[in-house]
Protein backbone atom coordinates (compact mmCIF):
# COMPACT_ATOMS: atom_id res chain seq x y z
CA UNK A 1 0.00 0.00 0.00
CA UNK A 2 0.93 3.64 -0.19
CA UNK A 3 1.83 5.92 2.72
CA UNK A 4 2.20 9.59 1.73
CA UNK A 5 3.07 8.50 -1.79
CA UNK A 6 5.63 5.87 -0.81
CA UNK A 7 5.11 2.15 -0.95
CA UNK A 8 4.99 0.38 2.41
CA UNK A 9 4.43 -3.22 3.45
CA UNK A 10 2.18 -4.27 6.31
CA UNK A 11 1.18 -7.41 8.14
CA UNK A 12 -2.20 -8.88 7.19
CA UNK A 13 -3.58 -8.16 10.67
CA UNK A 14 -2.33 -4.59 10.85
CA UNK A 15 -4.74 -1.71 11.18
CA UNK A 16 -3.82 1.58 9.56
CA UNK A 17 -2.93 2.88 13.03
CA UNK A 18 -0.70 -0.03 13.97
CA UNK A 19 1.01 0.21 10.56
CA UNK A 20 1.73 3.91 11.11
CA UNK A 21 2.93 3.38 14.66
CA UNK A 22 5.47 0.93 13.27
CA UNK A 23 6.46 3.19 10.37
CA UNK A 24 6.71 6.73 11.73
CA UNK A 25 7.68 8.32 15.04
CA UNK A 26 4.62 9.06 17.19
CA UNK A 27 5.12 12.82 16.91
CA UNK A 28 4.87 12.46 13.11
CA UNK A 29 1.52 10.63 13.18
CA UNK A 30 -0.83 13.60 12.79
CA UNK A 31 -1.52 17.12 13.97
CA UNK A 32 -4.69 18.17 15.73
CA UNK A 33 -6.97 20.37 13.62
CA UNK A 34 -8.05 22.22 16.77
CA UNK A 35 -4.69 22.92 18.40
CA UNK A 36 -2.06 22.23 15.75
CA UNK A 37 -0.16 20.03 18.20
CA UNK A 38 1.18 16.61 17.29
CA UNK A 39 -1.10 13.79 18.43
CA UNK A 40 -0.88 10.02 18.11
CA UNK A 41 -3.11 7.01 18.83
CA UNK A 42 -4.10 6.62 22.45
CA UNK A 43 -6.65 3.85 22.90
CA UNK A 44 -6.55 1.67 19.76
CA UNK A 45 -10.14 0.66 20.50
CA UNK A 46 -12.12 3.28 18.60
CA UNK A 47 -12.84 5.61 21.52
CA UNK A 48 -10.37 8.48 21.48
CA UNK A 49 -10.20 9.77 17.85
CA UNK A 50 -6.48 10.49 18.22
CA UNK A 51 -5.55 8.15 15.35
CA UNK A 52 -7.29 10.12 12.58
CA UNK A 53 -5.83 9.63 9.14
CA UNK A 54 -6.78 10.06 5.48
CA UNK A 55 -7.54 6.78 3.72
CA UNK A 56 -8.31 6.61 0.01
CA UNK A 57 -9.16 10.30 -0.14
CA UNK A 58 -11.48 10.33 2.88
CA UNK A 59 -10.03 12.34 5.76
CA UNK A 60 -10.47 11.87 9.50
CA UNK A 61 -10.89 8.10 9.55
CA UNK A 62 -10.14 6.24 12.76
CA UNK A 63 -6.97 4.42 11.76
CA UNK A 64 -7.32 1.88 14.58
CA UNK A 65 -10.62 0.59 13.17
CA UNK A 66 -9.53 0.14 9.57
CA UNK A 67 -7.67 -2.98 8.48
CA UNK A 68 -4.97 -2.44 5.85
CA UNK A 69 -5.82 -3.50 2.28
CA UNK A 70 -3.78 -3.99 -0.85
CA UNK A 71 -3.54 -0.78 -2.82
CA UNK A 72 -4.80 1.39 0.03
CA UNK A 73 -3.64 5.02 -0.13
CA UNK A 74 -2.91 6.42 3.30
CA UNK A 75 -1.99 10.03 3.99
CA UNK A 76 -1.02 11.47 7.31
CA UNK A 77 -2.89 14.63 8.26
CA UNK A 78 0.19 16.78 8.79
CA UNK A 79 1.44 19.73 6.75
CA UNK A 80 4.53 17.81 5.57
CA UNK A 81 2.23 15.18 4.08
CA UNK A 82 0.54 17.85 1.99
CA UNK A 83 -2.38 18.70 4.23
CA UNK A 84 -2.93 21.49 6.64
Amino acid sequence: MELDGETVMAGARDTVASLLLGSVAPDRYRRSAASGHPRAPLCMMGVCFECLVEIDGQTNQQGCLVRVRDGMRIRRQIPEAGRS
Partner: protein
Amino acid sequence: MTALDLLIVGGGAAGLSAAGVARAMDVSVELLDERPALGGNFFAGIGERTDGVGAFGPDYARGRALLNAAGAAKLSTATLAWRLERDGRAFALGEEGPVRSIAPKRLLIATGAMERPIPIPGAILPGVMYAGAAQLMLKTANVAPSGRCVLVGSGPLLLLLAKQLLDFGVVPSALVETTPRAGFAAVLQGLPAALNSPDLLRKGLALQRAIKRARVPWHRHVTGVSLKGGERVEQVVFTDAKGRNQSIQADLVLLHDGIIPNDHVTRQLGCKESWNAAQHCFSPVIDQWGETSLPGIFAAGDCTGIWGAQAAELSGKIAAIEIGRQLGCIDQQERDRKAREPLLKLKRQRAFRPFLEARFPPSLARAEQAAADTVICRCENVTAGEIRSAVAQGATGPDQLKSFTRSGMGPCQGRSCAMALAEIMARELACGVQAVGRHDIRPPLKPLPLGKIGAAQVALETVP
Protein backbone atom coordinates in the same frame (compact mmCIF):
# COMPACT_ATOMS: atom_id res chain seq x y z
CA MET B 1 -38.07 -4.00 6.12
CA THR B 2 -36.39 -7.22 7.16
CA ALA B 3 -37.96 -9.24 9.95
CA LEU B 4 -34.84 -9.65 12.00
CA ASP B 5 -35.45 -10.97 15.54
CA LEU B 6 -32.39 -9.65 17.31
CA LEU B 7 -29.80 -7.05 16.46
CA ILE B 8 -26.69 -7.02 18.61
CA VAL B 9 -24.35 -4.03 18.69
CA GLY B 10 -20.89 -5.13 19.78
CA GLY B 11 -19.05 -8.39 19.15
CA GLY B 12 -17.12 -8.92 22.38
CA ALA B 13 -17.73 -11.48 25.11
CA ALA B 14 -21.33 -10.45 25.79
CA GLY B 15 -22.39 -9.94 22.18
CA LEU B 16 -20.85 -13.15 20.88
CA SER B 17 -22.29 -15.14 23.74
CA ALA B 18 -25.76 -13.70 23.20
CA ALA B 19 -25.55 -14.35 19.45
CA GLY B 20 -24.69 -18.02 19.96
CA VAL B 21 -27.35 -18.61 22.60
CA ALA B 22 -30.02 -16.79 20.58
CA ARG B 23 -29.23 -18.74 17.40
CA ALA B 24 -29.51 -22.00 19.34
CA MET B 25 -33.13 -21.02 20.11
CA ASP B 26 -33.67 -20.31 16.40
CA VAL B 27 -33.77 -16.56 16.92
CA SER B 28 -32.53 -14.77 13.81
CA VAL B 29 -29.54 -12.58 14.70
CA GLU B 30 -27.38 -9.95 13.12
CA LEU B 31 -24.38 -8.65 15.03
CA LEU B 32 -22.70 -5.35 14.16
CA ASP B 33 -19.19 -4.45 15.24
CA GLU B 34 -17.31 -1.36 14.14
CA ARG B 35 -13.98 -3.15 14.43
CA PRO B 36 -12.49 -5.17 11.60
CA ALA B 37 -12.53 -8.37 13.68
CA LEU B 38 -14.69 -9.79 16.45
CA GLY B 39 -13.74 -10.46 20.04
CA GLY B 40 -14.05 -7.05 21.69
CA ASN B 41 -11.19 -6.13 23.97
CA PHE B 42 -10.78 -9.32 25.94
CA PHE B 43 -10.97 -11.72 23.00
CA ALA B 44 -9.39 -9.34 20.49
CA GLY B 45 -7.72 -11.16 17.63
CA ILE B 46 -8.93 -14.60 18.76
CA GLY B 47 -10.47 -15.48 15.41
CA GLU B 48 -7.30 -14.81 13.47
CA ARG B 49 -4.60 -16.34 15.62
CA THR B 50 -2.92 -19.21 13.90
CA ASP B 51 -0.18 -19.55 16.50
CA GLY B 52 -2.14 -20.59 19.58
CA VAL B 53 -3.21 -18.26 22.34
CA GLY B 54 0.33 -17.59 23.50
CA ALA B 55 0.65 -15.76 26.78
CA PHE B 56 -3.02 -15.00 27.04
CA GLY B 57 -3.98 -18.36 28.51
CA PRO B 58 -7.08 -20.51 28.70
CA ASP B 59 -9.43 -17.64 29.63
CA TYR B 60 -8.57 -16.08 26.28
CA ALA B 61 -8.88 -19.37 24.41
CA ARG B 62 -12.51 -19.51 25.55
CA GLY B 63 -13.19 -16.87 22.88
CA ARG B 64 -12.84 -19.51 20.15
CA ALA B 65 -15.90 -21.40 21.40
CA LEU B 66 -17.92 -18.17 21.65
CA LEU B 67 -16.92 -17.20 18.13
CA ASN B 68 -17.84 -20.62 16.77
CA ALA B 69 -21.26 -20.55 18.41
CA ALA B 70 -21.89 -17.02 17.16
CA GLY B 71 -20.93 -18.12 13.65
CA ALA B 72 -24.54 -19.15 13.03
CA ALA B 73 -25.54 -15.47 13.18
CA LYS B 74 -25.00 -12.84 10.49
CA LEU B 75 -21.80 -11.15 11.62
CA SER B 76 -21.13 -7.70 10.16
CA THR B 77 -17.70 -6.40 11.12
CA ALA B 78 -16.30 -2.97 10.21
CA THR B 79 -19.89 -1.79 10.44
CA LEU B 80 -20.84 1.25 12.47
CA ALA B 81 -24.29 1.50 14.05
CA TRP B 82 -24.37 5.29 13.90
CA ARG B 83 -27.91 6.05 14.89
CA LEU B 84 -30.30 4.06 17.07
CA GLU B 85 -33.97 4.72 17.65
CA ARG B 86 -35.96 4.04 20.78
CA ASP B 87 -38.05 1.49 18.89
CA GLY B 88 -34.89 -0.54 18.26
CA ARG B 89 -34.27 0.55 14.68
CA ALA B 90 -30.64 1.03 13.76
CA PHE B 91 -28.91 2.84 10.94
CA ALA B 92 -25.64 1.23 10.00
CA LEU B 93 -22.80 1.92 7.63
CA GLY B 94 -20.09 -0.52 6.54
CA GLU B 95 -16.78 0.22 4.84
CA GLU B 96 -18.55 -0.12 1.53
CA GLY B 97 -22.13 0.24 0.39
CA PRO B 98 -24.93 2.55 1.45
CA VAL B 99 -26.48 3.34 4.82
CA ARG B 100 -28.68 0.44 5.92
CA SER B 101 -31.79 0.62 8.05
CA ILE B 102 -32.35 -2.40 10.27
CA ALA B 103 -35.60 -2.90 12.18
CA PRO B 104 -35.15 -5.77 14.66
CA LYS B 105 -37.75 -7.05 17.10
CA ARG B 106 -35.22 -6.78 19.92
CA LEU B 107 -31.98 -4.84 20.33
CA LEU B 108 -29.03 -5.81 22.52
CA ILE B 109 -26.29 -3.32 23.28
CA ALA B 110 -22.99 -4.98 24.15
CA THR B 111 -20.41 -2.29 23.61
CA GLY B 112 -18.07 -3.35 26.39
CA ALA B 113 -15.69 -1.21 28.35
CA MET B 114 -13.19 1.53 27.64
CA GLU B 115 -10.20 2.83 29.50
CA ARG B 116 -11.07 5.33 32.21
CA PRO B 117 -9.86 8.58 30.58
CA ILE B 118 -6.84 10.00 32.37
CA PRO B 119 -6.48 13.78 32.12
CA ILE B 120 -3.04 14.39 33.62
CA PRO B 121 -0.46 16.92 32.46
CA GLY B 122 1.22 15.70 29.28
CA ALA B 123 -1.25 12.89 28.61
CA ILE B 124 -1.92 14.38 25.16
CA LEU B 125 1.73 13.92 24.07
CA PRO B 126 2.48 11.42 21.31
CA GLY B 127 4.03 8.34 22.84
CA VAL B 128 1.41 8.18 25.58
CA MET B 129 -1.11 5.39 25.19
CA TYR B 130 -3.48 3.47 27.36
CA ALA B 131 -2.42 0.07 28.64
CA GLY B 132 -5.34 -1.45 26.77
CA ALA B 133 -3.91 -0.14 23.50
CA ALA B 134 -0.66 -2.03 24.04
CA GLN B 135 -2.58 -5.13 25.00
CA LEU B 136 -4.77 -4.91 21.88
CA MET B 137 -1.69 -4.63 19.69
CA LEU B 138 -0.21 -7.72 21.34
CA LYS B 139 -3.43 -9.62 20.79
CA THR B 140 -4.37 -8.49 17.30
CA ALA B 141 -1.05 -7.88 15.58
CA ASN B 142 1.55 -9.62 17.78
CA VAL B 143 3.25 -6.23 18.03
CA ALA B 144 5.08 -5.43 21.26
CA PRO B 145 6.40 -1.96 22.03
CA SER B 146 10.05 -1.16 21.53
CA GLY B 147 12.18 1.39 23.37
CA ARG B 148 11.89 2.49 26.98
CA CYS B 149 8.38 1.67 28.10
CA VAL B 150 6.95 2.86 31.42
CA LEU B 151 3.67 1.61 32.86
CA VAL B 152 1.84 4.20 34.96
CA GLY B 153 -1.34 4.04 37.00
CA SER B 154 -3.37 1.52 38.86
CA GLY B 155 -5.53 -1.57 38.49
CA PRO B 156 -5.27 -5.28 37.85
CA LEU B 157 -4.99 -4.75 34.09
CA LEU B 158 -1.80 -2.74 34.51
CA LEU B 159 -0.16 -5.62 36.34
CA LEU B 160 -1.54 -8.08 33.81
CA LEU B 161 -0.09 -6.05 30.95
CA ALA B 162 3.31 -5.97 32.68
CA LYS B 163 3.21 -9.75 32.85
CA GLN B 164 2.10 -10.09 29.21
CA LEU B 165 4.87 -7.76 28.04
CA LEU B 166 7.40 -9.87 29.95
CA ASP B 167 6.01 -12.98 28.25
CA PHE B 168 6.61 -11.24 24.92
CA GLY B 169 10.19 -10.56 25.96
CA VAL B 170 9.67 -6.87 26.63
CA VAL B 171 10.93 -5.68 30.02
CA PRO B 172 9.25 -2.40 31.02
CA SER B 173 11.66 0.30 32.22
CA ALA B 174 9.48 0.86 35.24
CA LEU B 175 6.12 0.23 36.79
CA VAL B 176 4.84 3.42 38.41
CA GLU B 177 1.85 2.49 40.51
CA THR B 178 -0.51 5.14 41.88
CA THR B 179 -2.67 2.70 43.83
CA PRO B 180 -3.00 4.13 47.33
CA ARG B 181 -2.03 2.06 50.35
CA ALA B 182 -4.83 -0.41 50.98
CA GLY B 183 -7.41 1.10 53.24
CA PHE B 184 -7.71 -1.63 55.84
CA ALA B 185 -11.45 -1.35 56.32
CA ALA B 186 -12.10 -1.16 52.60
CA VAL B 187 -10.16 -4.31 51.87
CA LEU B 188 -11.74 -6.18 54.77
CA GLN B 189 -15.13 -5.32 53.37
CA GLY B 190 -14.42 -7.09 50.10
CA LEU B 191 -12.29 -9.86 51.49
CA PRO B 192 -14.90 -12.50 52.37
CA ALA B 193 -16.25 -12.45 48.84
CA ALA B 194 -12.75 -12.50 47.44
CA LEU B 195 -11.81 -15.52 49.49
CA ASN B 196 -14.75 -17.30 47.88
CA SER B 197 -12.95 -16.89 44.56
CA PRO B 198 -9.53 -18.27 45.49
CA ASP B 199 -8.49 -18.79 41.87
CA LEU B 200 -8.93 -15.10 41.10
CA LEU B 201 -6.95 -14.16 44.19
CA ARG B 202 -4.24 -16.63 43.23
CA LYS B 203 -4.03 -15.14 39.71
CA GLY B 204 -3.40 -11.73 41.20
CA LEU B 205 -0.62 -12.94 43.45
CA ALA B 206 1.03 -14.82 40.57
CA LEU B 207 1.11 -11.60 38.57
CA GLN B 208 2.91 -9.78 41.34
CA ARG B 209 5.49 -12.56 41.69
CA ALA B 210 6.25 -12.58 37.95
CA ILE B 211 6.85 -8.83 37.90
CA LYS B 212 9.13 -9.01 40.95
CA ARG B 213 11.05 -11.91 39.48
CA ALA B 214 11.80 -9.90 36.32
CA ARG B 215 13.23 -7.11 38.52
CA VAL B 216 11.14 -4.42 36.90
CA PRO B 217 11.70 -1.22 38.94
CA TRP B 218 8.41 -0.91 40.78
CA HIS B 219 7.43 2.40 42.39
CA ARG B 220 4.35 2.04 44.57
CA HIS B 221 1.93 4.49 46.19
CA VAL B 222 3.14 7.21 43.87
CA THR B 223 1.44 10.63 43.62
CA GLY B 224 1.64 13.81 41.52
CA VAL B 225 2.30 12.12 38.18
CA SER B 226 2.92 14.30 35.15
CA LEU B 227 4.34 13.53 31.73
CA LYS B 228 6.92 15.81 30.18
CA GLY B 229 8.16 16.29 26.66
CA GLY B 230 8.23 18.66 23.70
CA GLU B 231 6.75 17.11 20.59
CA ARG B 232 6.52 13.67 22.25
CA VAL B 233 6.72 12.19 25.71
CA GLU B 234 10.19 12.05 27.22
CA GLN B 235 9.82 11.70 30.98
CA VAL B 236 7.49 10.47 33.68
CA VAL B 237 7.74 12.74 36.73
CA PHE B 238 6.19 11.83 40.10
CA THR B 239 6.52 11.91 43.86
CA ASP B 240 7.39 8.55 45.37
CA ALA B 241 6.05 7.03 48.58
CA LYS B 242 8.84 8.67 50.58
CA GLY B 243 8.02 12.08 49.21
CA ARG B 244 11.01 12.27 46.86
CA ASN B 245 10.61 13.72 43.38
CA GLN B 246 11.55 11.21 40.71
CA SER B 247 11.84 11.29 36.97
CA ILE B 248 12.11 8.37 34.55
CA GLN B 249 13.03 8.58 30.87
CA ALA B 250 10.45 7.06 28.56
CA ASP B 251 9.78 6.54 24.85
CA LEU B 252 6.36 5.06 25.49
CA VAL B 253 4.12 5.63 28.51
CA LEU B 254 1.24 3.24 29.05
CA LEU B 255 -1.47 4.68 31.31
CA HIS B 256 -4.21 2.81 33.12
CA ASP B 257 -6.61 3.61 35.91
CA GLY B 258 -9.27 0.97 35.53
CA ILE B 259 -12.01 0.73 32.94
CA ILE B 260 -15.50 2.15 32.70
CA PRO B 261 -18.57 1.21 30.66
CA ASN B 262 -18.44 2.22 27.00
CA ASP B 263 -22.01 3.46 27.24
CA HIS B 264 -22.29 5.88 24.34
CA VAL B 265 -24.96 3.82 22.61
CA THR B 266 -27.25 3.51 25.62
CA ARG B 267 -26.75 7.23 26.26
CA GLN B 268 -27.70 8.18 22.71
CA LEU B 269 -30.82 6.06 23.11
CA GLY B 270 -31.64 7.86 26.34
CA CYS B 271 -31.70 4.72 28.50
CA LYS B 272 -32.08 5.59 32.16
CA GLU B 273 -28.72 5.49 33.94
CA SER B 274 -27.49 5.57 37.49
CA TRP B 275 -24.30 6.43 39.32
CA ASN B 276 -22.28 3.46 40.51
CA ALA B 277 -20.35 4.88 43.45
CA ALA B 278 -18.25 1.74 44.02
CA GLN B 279 -17.04 1.68 40.40
CA HIS B 280 -17.01 5.45 40.12
CA CYS B 281 -18.91 5.50 36.84
CA PHE B 282 -22.37 5.89 35.36
CA SER B 283 -24.09 2.82 33.97
CA PRO B 284 -27.46 2.09 32.36
CA VAL B 285 -30.20 0.81 34.65
CA ILE B 286 -31.09 -2.79 33.73
CA ASP B 287 -33.23 -5.53 35.24
CA GLN B 288 -31.87 -9.00 36.03
CA TRP B 289 -32.29 -10.01 32.36
CA GLY B 290 -30.48 -6.96 31.05
CA GLU B 291 -33.53 -5.07 29.78
CA THR B 292 -32.99 -1.31 29.94
CA SER B 293 -35.56 1.35 30.80
CA LEU B 294 -36.62 1.15 27.12
CA PRO B 295 -38.77 -1.95 26.58
CA GLY B 296 -37.24 -4.38 24.11
CA ILE B 297 -33.79 -2.81 24.34
CA PHE B 298 -31.28 -4.85 26.32
CA ALA B 299 -27.72 -4.24 27.44
CA ALA B 300 -25.17 -6.83 28.56
CA GLY B 301 -21.53 -7.08 29.51
CA ASP B 302 -19.20 -4.36 30.69
CA CYS B 303 -21.20 -1.55 29.07
CA THR B 304 -23.58 -2.04 32.02
CA GLY B 305 -20.87 -1.95 34.72
CA ILE B 306 -17.43 -3.48 35.06
CA TRP B 307 -17.70 -7.17 35.92
CA GLY B 308 -15.18 -8.73 33.55
CA ALA B 309 -15.22 -10.97 30.49
CA GLN B 310 -16.61 -14.08 32.17
CA ALA B 311 -19.49 -12.11 33.65
CA ALA B 312 -20.04 -10.51 30.25
CA GLU B 313 -20.38 -13.90 28.61
CA LEU B 314 -22.93 -14.90 31.26
CA SER B 315 -24.94 -11.69 31.04
CA GLY B 316 -25.06 -11.99 27.25
CA LYS B 317 -26.41 -15.48 27.63
CA ILE B 318 -29.00 -14.41 30.19
CA ALA B 319 -30.21 -11.54 28.00
CA ALA B 320 -30.49 -13.86 24.99
CA ILE B 321 -32.55 -16.35 27.01
CA GLU B 322 -35.04 -13.67 28.05
CA ILE B 323 -35.15 -12.32 24.50
CA GLY B 324 -35.95 -15.88 23.36
CA ARG B 325 -38.85 -15.93 25.81
CA GLN B 326 -40.13 -12.51 24.74
CA LEU B 327 -40.09 -13.65 21.12
CA GLY B 328 -42.01 -16.82 21.97
CA CYS B 329 -39.19 -19.28 21.29
CA ILE B 330 -39.31 -20.62 24.84
CA ASP B 331 -41.83 -20.32 27.66
CA GLN B 332 -41.19 -18.83 31.06
CA GLN B 333 -40.52 -22.18 32.69
CA GLU B 334 -37.92 -23.01 30.09
CA ARG B 335 -36.36 -19.59 30.48
CA ASP B 336 -36.05 -20.02 34.23
CA ARG B 337 -34.56 -23.46 33.79
CA LYS B 338 -32.00 -22.26 31.24
CA ALA B 339 -31.12 -19.13 33.19
CA ARG B 340 -30.72 -20.68 36.64
CA GLU B 341 -27.09 -21.69 36.29
CA PRO B 342 -25.80 -18.59 34.46
CA LEU B 343 -27.57 -16.34 36.96
CA LEU B 344 -25.86 -18.18 39.82
CA LYS B 345 -22.46 -18.07 38.15
CA LEU B 346 -22.89 -14.38 37.39
CA LYS B 347 -23.56 -13.68 41.04
CA ARG B 348 -20.35 -15.48 41.94
CA GLN B 349 -18.36 -13.57 39.33
CA ARG B 350 -19.62 -10.27 40.65
CA ALA B 351 -18.81 -11.15 44.23
CA PHE B 352 -15.10 -10.62 43.64
CA ARG B 353 -15.52 -7.10 42.32
CA PRO B 354 -16.03 -5.18 45.58
CA PHE B 355 -12.57 -6.36 46.62
CA LEU B 356 -10.98 -5.00 43.42
CA GLU B 357 -13.05 -1.81 43.57
CA ALA B 358 -11.90 -1.13 47.13
CA ARG B 359 -8.30 -2.02 46.33
CA PHE B 360 -8.04 0.04 43.14
CA PRO B 361 -10.07 3.25 43.41
CA PRO B 362 -9.40 5.85 40.67
CA SER B 363 -6.08 7.38 41.67
CA LEU B 364 -4.57 8.81 38.50
CA ALA B 365 -7.74 10.03 36.77
CA ARG B 366 -8.61 12.78 39.25
CA ALA B 367 -9.82 15.54 36.95
CA GLU B 368 -11.20 17.66 39.78
CA GLN B 369 -7.60 18.16 40.93
CA ALA B 370 -6.24 18.88 37.45
CA ALA B 371 -3.92 21.88 37.09
CA ALA B 372 -5.36 24.75 35.04
CA ASP B 373 -3.33 24.03 31.90
CA THR B 374 -4.16 20.31 31.77
CA VAL B 375 -6.07 19.45 28.61
CA ILE B 376 -9.42 17.87 29.47
CA CYS B 377 -11.16 17.78 26.08
CA ARG B 378 -8.64 16.28 23.69
CA CYS B 379 -10.64 16.91 20.52
CA GLU B 380 -11.23 20.64 21.07
CA ASN B 381 -8.17 21.22 23.22
CA VAL B 382 -10.02 22.67 26.21
CA THR B 383 -8.13 22.94 29.50
CA ALA B 384 -9.27 22.50 33.08
CA GLY B 385 -8.79 26.22 33.64
CA GLU B 386 -11.09 27.14 30.74
CA ILE B 387 -13.71 24.77 32.08
CA ARG B 388 -13.55 26.28 35.55
CA SER B 389 -13.89 29.80 34.18
CA ALA B 390 -16.95 28.78 32.12
CA VAL B 391 -18.53 27.40 35.29
CA ALA B 392 -17.76 30.69 37.02
CA GLN B 393 -19.42 32.51 34.12
CA GLY B 394 -22.69 30.73 34.60
CA ALA B 395 -22.50 27.27 33.02
CA THR B 396 -24.82 25.44 35.36
CA GLY B 397 -24.92 22.03 33.70
CA PRO B 398 -22.93 19.82 31.34
CA ASP B 399 -24.81 20.88 28.21
CA GLN B 400 -24.37 24.56 28.98
CA LEU B 401 -20.70 23.87 29.71
CA LYS B 402 -20.34 22.14 26.37
CA SER B 403 -21.87 25.07 24.51
CA PHE B 404 -19.74 27.58 26.41
CA THR B 405 -16.39 25.84 25.89
CA ARG B 406 -16.76 23.38 22.96
CA SER B 407 -15.59 20.61 25.28
CA GLY B 408 -17.37 17.47 24.13
CA MET B 409 -18.22 18.94 20.72
CA GLY B 410 -15.42 17.23 18.81
CA PRO B 411 -15.53 13.96 16.92
CA CYS B 412 -15.34 11.78 20.06
CA GLN B 413 -18.40 13.60 21.42
CA GLY B 414 -17.09 13.58 24.95
CA ARG B 415 -16.05 9.96 25.25
CA SER B 416 -12.72 11.20 26.62
CA CYS B 417 -13.90 14.17 28.65
CA ALA B 418 -17.47 13.70 29.88
CA MET B 419 -16.50 12.15 33.21
CA ALA B 420 -13.75 14.71 33.77
CA LEU B 421 -16.13 17.59 33.03
CA ALA B 422 -18.61 16.21 35.54
CA GLU B 423 -15.91 15.84 38.17
CA ILE B 424 -14.56 19.36 37.68
CA MET B 425 -18.02 20.86 37.66
CA ALA B 426 -19.03 18.91 40.76
CA ARG B 427 -16.00 20.26 42.60
CA GLU B 428 -16.64 23.86 41.47
CA LEU B 429 -20.33 23.75 42.34
CA ALA B 430 -19.72 21.73 45.51
CA CYS B 431 -22.11 18.93 44.61
CA GLY B 432 -21.87 15.27 43.64
CA VAL B 433 -20.79 14.00 40.22
CA GLN B 434 -24.12 12.23 39.89
CA ALA B 435 -25.96 15.52 40.41
CA VAL B 436 -24.03 17.10 37.54
CA GLY B 437 -24.38 14.21 35.09
CA ARG B 438 -23.06 14.25 31.55
CA HIS B 439 -24.04 16.08 28.39
CA ASP B 440 -26.53 14.64 25.89
CA ILE B 441 -25.20 12.34 23.18
CA ARG B 442 -26.50 13.25 19.74
CA PRO B 443 -26.56 11.16 16.61
CA PRO B 444 -24.43 10.17 14.83
CA LEU B 445 -22.57 8.04 17.35
CA LYS B 446 -19.49 8.59 15.20
CA PRO B 447 -18.88 11.00 12.35
CA LEU B 448 -19.80 9.80 8.87
CA PRO B 449 -19.74 11.50 5.46
CA LEU B 450 -22.71 13.70 4.52
CA GLY B 451 -22.76 12.10 1.10
CA LYS B 452 -23.46 8.68 2.59
CA ILE B 453 -26.35 10.08 4.62
CA GLY B 454 -27.78 12.16 1.82
CA ALA B 455 -27.66 9.21 -0.58
CA ALA B 456 -29.46 6.98 1.92
CA GLN B 457 -32.79 8.06 0.49
CA VAL B 458 -32.40 5.76 -2.49
CA ALA B 459 -30.95 2.90 -0.51
CA LEU B 460 -33.73 2.93 2.05
CA GLU B 461 -36.47 2.96 -0.54
CA THR B 462 -35.18 -0.17 -2.16
CA VAL B 463 -34.91 -2.19 1.06
CA PRO B 464 -37.80 -4.69 0.94
